[in-house]
């Protein structure tokens, strides 16, 4: 058991509490049979039991002190944050730049971040791939990928 598992135990219990609050009033329907809240109640009980189990294992002394850290340090950690951040930025940018332009910038950034390729290689591959993919899905498969204010 790691310290992070305690967080999961708390999450399980909190989730269970929220679900029970939402579902118990609907456990029975107007006719007295099981309503829409019954099934979530059973799931909430399962999660609560699991949460208590983790707490019990923790307090029994089943603690792993040599577990690797959850979050990586060094270059690996930096790459992780930058990649995850770029994924968030890509989602946000898709709304106003559109899929094509947002994906182009996303691919350029990631190729430079992960591989440090030369600029002309990065730009060529990014334009080629994103262009091909956008054309294929929009024109051949008629998929309405989000367009931004520039129309891409």
């Amino acid at each position: 058991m790691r310290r992070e598992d305690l967080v999961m135990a708390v999450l399980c219990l909190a989730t269970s509490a929220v679900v029970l609050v939402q579902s118990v009033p609907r456990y029975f329907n107007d006719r007295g049979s099981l309503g829409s809240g019954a099934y979530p109640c059973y799931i909430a009980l399962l999660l609560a039991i699991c949460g208590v189990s983790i707490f019990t294992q923790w307090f029994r002394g089943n603690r792993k002190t040599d577990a690797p850290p959850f979050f990586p340090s060094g270059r690996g950690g930096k790459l992780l944050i930058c990649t995850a951040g770029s994924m968030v930025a890509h989602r946000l940018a898709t709304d106003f730049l559109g899929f094509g332009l947002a994906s182009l910038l996303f691919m350029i950034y990631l190729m430079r971040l992960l591989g440090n390729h030369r600029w002309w290689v990065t730009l060529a591959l990014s334009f080629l791939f994103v262009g091909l993919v956008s054309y294929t899905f929009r024109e051949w498969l008629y998929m309405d990928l989000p367009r931004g204010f520039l129309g891409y």
Partner: protein
Amino acid sequence: MFAWSDLLAGFGTAITPMNLLWCFIGSVLGTFVGVLPGVGPTPAIAMLLPITSYLGPTPAIIMLAGIYYGSQYGGSTTSILLNMPGEISSVPTCLDGYQLAKQGRAGPALAMAAISSFFAGTFSLVGLTFFAPPLAEVALKFTPTEYVGLMVLALAVVVNLSGKSLTKGLISAGFGLLFTAIGMDSITGEQRMTFGNLNLLNGFDFVVAAIGLFALSEILASVEEEVGQISVMKIGKLMPTLRELKDNLMAMIRATLLGFGLGMLPGVSPAVTAFIAYDTEKRFSKHPEKFGTGVLEGVTAPEGANNSATSGGFVPLFAFGLPSSSAMAMLLGALMIYGLQPGPIMWQQNPHFIWTIIASMYIGNAMLLVLNLPLVGMWAKVCEIPYSILAPTVLIFCVIGAFSVRGNIFDLWVALIFGLVGYAMKKLGYPPAPMLLCMILGDRLESSFRQSLVLSGGSLRIFVTRPITATLLALAVILTAASLVARRRASAPAVLVEVDPNY
């Protein structure tokens, strides 16, 4: 029951030019996905699933099935040439395959992997042909109560085999079930746990969740490990000698039977069967001490088993509508998207569809032998694609896949959140396979459960008074108890391995 005319009619449809083309595309994509470390059949199927909605159900399922069994062939290439398994089911192959490559025998190892895969894949398809129809007839007698028992057993198997901690598996499954409860109740129409968010009225789509849990999380994990470009061992002369083929025949037969038998069990993935087959072959060997130093049987057994398990996995899918692995769960999802419910009803209403898929798998197996033997050098080159190019391209495909499910930007956020959740689960040892399986089976489990209670007038005793249901639930309890005892003794056999999220 099985009739030769049904299978022949299936071949008649499977060999039409378009279906052959999609079978070939699926086989090539599957091999490609299998060769690439970090991209498995589950995320590949998840990414391509929305796009296949432009095809009809038959070519779509032919292609997606091709990706699944094709990936088993491709996984051995990187195991042997790079000591890096393309799929978790190819991990045992690394043990002897890479040693053979270091001895200059990469060619025979690759050939033996392909031949064993073809042998096991083909003979296990024969098993599928004969086992699935009678099991489907048995399933016709099942009421919702029996399906509750079967699904609980399937989930128990998945939870017990996925990961080192039973509690973590249960938590993963619990959250998966909870996610299916979000949205509009299918029976009463009431909103559950939407918190006033209109985007949550239809709940979370399992395809979007699968893209996040398996593809996005894997990319994040690989980025953290700074996976870069890798160098590949030389292949050399390709084929093994006739004597080596003869010596490995029994290994192929054992792997076929073991893989098919275990693969039929709901919840047992090809990854698990590969480990068991390797261990079994070692026990049967006259020189077990040589395993791990470079013996061909160490390649033959796991590669044969993982391929026969894929065919075995189609038995519960077609007979009961229950998936045996995450990738099979995605195939089930694909069938549901087309409005097809696999199980006994499909055998009655649409048997030709099933026989066409089975026939296409025979054809696909033959295609894969041709693709993997003479073209293995080409696949080895694929391994050399820098991860810095592969990662962004896969991520962009993930975005397209997630968006195309419902055309909703909200799903992109859902995929991203599931990706971060999947990454955290990976780091903390929480298996994602139970979560995905529960998200796919959760609706059906709930509706079967509530229908059962309607049948019994609200009494839970129906689950113990009906003999088949009681047996299935008892098996689930016994399995869980046995797993707990095994874990407590800390002498868990090799079968209790942490299954890669790609399965």
